[in-house]
Each structure stands twice: as C-alpha cells, then as structure tokens.
C-alpha cells in the first residue's frame, strides 16, 4: 500500500533543520576519580585488581565485571606497553582532511587485562603491531585529571 498522492512541487519544503542543544559534564565516577587524580597528581597509571579473579584491569573499575566483587588492590601498571592494534586517521571527526595523519592505537600493558586507547606519536610507516611504546605525560602543571594528561605514547 502506498500514499494516494505525491507532491510534484520541487520547491516545496522537504526538510526541517535543527540541532541538539545540550552539553554535558560527566563525573569520572568512583574508580575514575582515583585513576585520574593519581595520573594528575602522581603521574602514575593505575590498574585495579579483583580479589577473587586475581586479574588486574585497565582502565580500573570499581567492580569486577566477571564476579561482581569490589576491586581490591590498585597497582601501578607502569608506563610501558605494546601496540595491540592501531589505525591511521586521515580525516578528523567532522570528516575534514587532516594536514598530518594521526596514529591511534590500543596499548596493552604487561599482565594487565584491557588497555588504553591513545595517540601514538610516530610516523605512520614506523608503527607496527607489537612495538614497544612508553607514555609521555604532560608537565604536572598542565595536567587536569583527564586522559589527555598523557600526551601520547612514544616508541620506546
């Protein structure tokens, strides 16, 4: 079945334009607060360990998603990891071409489940899966308790 009439006026209204007027402030949560304030104040990357499953996860969570225990020990996972996978962005979020391509990757840390997605500060042709990288932090006074307190991961 179809409508019984169709407009034959090419000029007639066909769309109505609008946007989503709202902005957001997200609290980083109980686990996020500890992770980001430690990153900011002490320059350390923390993971959280499940007292039952004995696994350390990054980013740290308040609870273990497998057994629902509250996380026990919080441990410094260090700054060195390996590139698990990566992509080379040629366009920005709005689809605009970038002057220089940016490499984004998933960085995994030894004996830690999970990892961090971040910028890999290296020429695209030099980046390889499995390569060692190290977090480069911003200077203390520029850090605000954000994932961008890590400037990038550099080949190491």
């Amino acid at each position, binding site marked *: 079945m179809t409508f019984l009439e169709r407009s034959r006026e090419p000029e007639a209204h066909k769309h109505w334009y609008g946007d*989503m*007027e*709202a902005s*957001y402030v997200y*609290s980083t*949560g109980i686990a996020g607060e500890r992770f980001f304030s430690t990153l900011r104040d002490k320059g350390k990357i923390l993971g959280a360990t499940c007292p039952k499953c004995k696994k350390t996860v990054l980013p740290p969570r*308040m*609870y273990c998603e497998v057994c*629902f225990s509250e996380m026990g020990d919080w441990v410094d996972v260090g700054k060195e990891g390996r590139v698990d996978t990566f992509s080379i962005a040629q366009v920005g979020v709005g689809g605009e071409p970038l002057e220089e391509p940016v490499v984004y990757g998933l960085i995994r840390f030894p004996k830690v489940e999970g990892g961090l997605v971040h910028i890999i500060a290296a020429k695209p042709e030099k980046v390889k899966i499995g390569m060692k990288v190290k977090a480069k932090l911003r200077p203390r006074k520029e850090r605000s308790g954000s994932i961008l307190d890590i400037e990038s991961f550099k080949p190491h």
Partner: protein
Amino acid sequence: MNKVACIGAGMTLFWRRLQETGKEMCWEAASMALDQAGLTLKDIDMVVLGSAPDAFDGIHMKGENLLDGAGGAKKPYMRVFTGGGTAVFTPIAAWWHIASGLAEKVLVVCEEKMSSCFPHPQSAFGHIWDPILDRPLKPNLVWIFAMEMNRYMTAYGIKKEDIARIAVKNKRNAADHPCAQLPDANITIDDVLNSEVMAWPVQRLDISPPSDGASALVMTSEKVAKKQSDDIAWVEGTGWCIDKTMWTCRDLVFPEYVAKAAKQAYKMAKIDNPRKQIHVAEPYDPFDYKECHHTEGLLLCDKGKAPDMTKEGITYRDGDLPICPSGGLLGVGNPIAATMGIKVGELYWQLTQQAGKRQVKNDPEVGVCQAWGDLMQYGSVLVMRRG
C-alpha cells in the same frame, strides 16, 4: 506460562548529582539485589537493563555502556526503553524471559544519570518533541504536564489544594525512605500552594526532581524462588499499552492506555474488583496530579475521584488503600527508569513485610505498581502477590 517470583531488590540513593558513573550505580544496586536473593552473578542466566533517553546520560547506546555494571558481560542481555514507563516495563521484560521458560534467574537493573546534561536535563527533554510542529515553539516539557493537569482539573472541577495534598502525603512518606532526595516530614498544603509557579497550574512542589540513581531486582522461576528465599512476591499480572503519537489529538482527561494496561494485568491476575482486591498501590507520581490520573487509570476509583481518596485518608499508610507509601517520585526522587526501586522494589518490600518504617498497616496480600512514559502516553502495569 511459568510462575515468576521476585526474591531480591536493591537501590542507590536518589540524588540530583551522584559521583558514581552510571555503570557504578548499576553495580551498587545490582549487588544489593543479588545479596538479598542469596545469589551471585555466576548464577544469573540473563540480564535485562532499563534506561530512559540516552540524551540524559549523554552516552548514546547507554545499554552498551552500562552493561558490565548491570552484570550483562558475556550473558544474554537486552536493554528496554519506554521512556518513564521503563521503570515497570523492565521487570515486565524480565517476567517474559522467565514465564516463557527461557530463563530461571534474571537480574533486572534500571539506571538514570540526569546530572550529566547541561544547562539542565530539560535541554535533553527538548529533543523528544516533534521537530516540525512542537520544537519551533521552544517548549519546556513541564508545559504538557501543566496542560494535562489543567484539563484534568477543569473537566472534574478539582481544586488545586486537593491535588497539593498528594504532594504533601508523598513528601512526608519519603521522610522514612533512606534514599530520599526531597523528603519533608513537615510540609503543608500551603507550602505547595505558595511555591514558585513554574507553568500554571504546575508549581515547584507539584513536581518531582531530576535525579541520579539505579535500582535492581532479582526475578526467578518458582523452583529457584522456593529453594532460595523465604521472602517471595509473585508476579501475577503484567500489562502495557500506548496512546497515539499525536499528543495534541489525545484525551488528556482520562488515561485510557493505563486502564487498558491495567485490565490486561488484572485479567492475568484474576482480579475482577481492583478496589477490593488490591491492598497497596505504587502508581507513577512525577507530578501530584499524575498520582490521581493513574489511580483512576488503574481503576482504583471513579473518574475524577482520586483526590477525594487522599482527602478521606484512604491512601495513607494506615488507610484502606495506601498509595505511594515509598514516598514516590515526588519525595524520593525521579531518576526516570531507576524509579523501579520505589515502584516494583517498594511493592516487593511491602508485600514481604520488609518496608520497616514505611510498612503499610493493612497486611497487604496483593499490590499493583505502574509507570508512565514516552511522551505522556505509555502505561506499564505489574501486579504482585505475597508468597
């Protein structure tokens, strides 16, 4: 259909801004419900999550974001969404998981984090209107409720003070709820009538506040419930119904869709005289007039007569038919979907005599709860009986 039980409930504080992320709140509430049921996440077969518009949390695909806190990782999992109706529709979805025989132990989690949205959660509500007909008029969501309230009051000649009495009852009831955001043991009708006019006839104290919060239930088969718990409430009936899209073309005086949902649930529960056979009710009360509207929709009184029930003392905790003994959304708070904790959760605690200071005095055997949602058009109804 298999029998379905509720054997545990939990909820976080309801508060304007909680530090926890949405998933952290989910985990807190879910852990409480599991503890009460004496189960662990490993025992759970399936998980159902409910949350209202993504635009509040500001995370699209909220169901995906919240799933690990809800215990859904690597399990059969779904998110349901019927606006405010989600609060009672989520356990209805869990009920059909078990009634169908598909699952025996289901974890039910509801969440809302409205504090993320700026300048006000109203900004997100703005996006639920029709973009062509309504949004160019720059509406505030309170408007439609104000319009519905005005039509309801005018149609039956109801006085504002008789509606304000509902807000007073619920905010006073909330003084006994440990999670309450806006309890007030001493509030009076004059306080409500003298509060700031937001959109006439709606005044500040006629409205529930925006809140952060989460709640959870554990629902199981008969076999699991009897093995696991002495505190059982059976889900006896479920119903849901929605009114038409064009809200300006609806009857704003009587919520027929709630009545249809209620009739479906009552038929299933073999209730033919709800006024006699229901002993406690938790209708959705985001505004004081909505409690009246929904009490009428749930067929617990004649049309236009709900305000009289409170005037006559029937709806208080020591009355014949206590309504919103939890303190409701008006007193405890309104984290949309998470109000499951003060609707279904409260009914569970009332029917199993665990409500403490909030316990109603008429030794209730059967209760009904209801939520209301989408663009003021959706009714979800659940009837429970004590085990």
